[in-house]
């Protein structure tokens, strides 16, 4: 429990760092570290498949995509961020944490969740038999992503 809490605190800290840091490369790396911590949390929750996906895809692939984009969009003049951010962000975040700690306990009974019960079979059974439509949707989403990237990077015709 203590290790899990420490990992969750680390996850929030690195996520906040990823938003607050001014250097884009550093914030991409801290986002990757946050994903790694989330993957470890998933492993500790007895969810190895979600953990593997989180670490390999989100911490690996998405970080590579981010770093590639940062390298491709290198500019001399950096985007000037608002000066208010540096003190408004931590203030608002700490205020939210306090409200969150006070309110979440009373909200716990009202949050709807699937009724608890023993699940039959393995992860494969649940994924292939229980959520077949999700998988079809996944294939459609991947295809949509591929086609949109192709459309965005296509070479211009002479008529354009």
């Amino acid at each position, binding site marked *: 429990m203590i290790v899990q809490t420490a990992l969750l605190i680390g996850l929030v800290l690195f*996520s906040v760092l990823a938003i607050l840091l001014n250097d884009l490369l550093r914030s991409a790396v801290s*986002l990757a570290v946050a994903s790694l911590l989330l993957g470890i949390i998933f492993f500790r929750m007895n*969810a190895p498949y979600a953990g593997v996906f989180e670490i390999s895809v989100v911490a690996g692939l*998405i970080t590579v*995509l981010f770093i590639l*984009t940062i390298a491709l969009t290198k500019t001399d003049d950096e985007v000037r961020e608002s000066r208010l951010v540096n003190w408004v962000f931590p203030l608002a975040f700490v205020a939210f944490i306090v409200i969150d700690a006070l309110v979440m306990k009373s909200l716990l009974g009202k949050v709807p969740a699937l009724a608890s019960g023993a699940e039959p079979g393995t992860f494969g059974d649940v994924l292939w038999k229980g959520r077949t439509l999700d998988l079809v949707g996944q294939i459609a989403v991947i295809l949509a992503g591929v086609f949109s990237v192709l459309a965005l990077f296509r070479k211009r015709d002479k008529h354009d």
Partner: protein
Amino acid sequence: MINTWYLYLFFAAALVFAGLLGLLAKRNLIKLFIAIEVISKGVSLLLLGTGFAKGNILTAQALVVTFIVVEVSLVATALALIINVYRHTKCLDIRKLTKLKG
């Protein structure tokens, strides 16, 4: 003894709020997208935490795996869009996109 569900909901809410604050405060397009990523981390933590606390870990895992695949597709498309915006405006400032002219 703290309720485990409370712990996960608490941290998921904190992550989502941090992402929303980042979306409101930042001006760099890549930074805005990193904030969206933080929100999506909060959502997947919420899904799996609820599944873990309620004893539906396999269903929650299946949902999280689906969510991660959708997320990757979204990231690839959005980063391609950001590169295209950069080629047009030579800048990543969100304020330069207020005019919808080519």
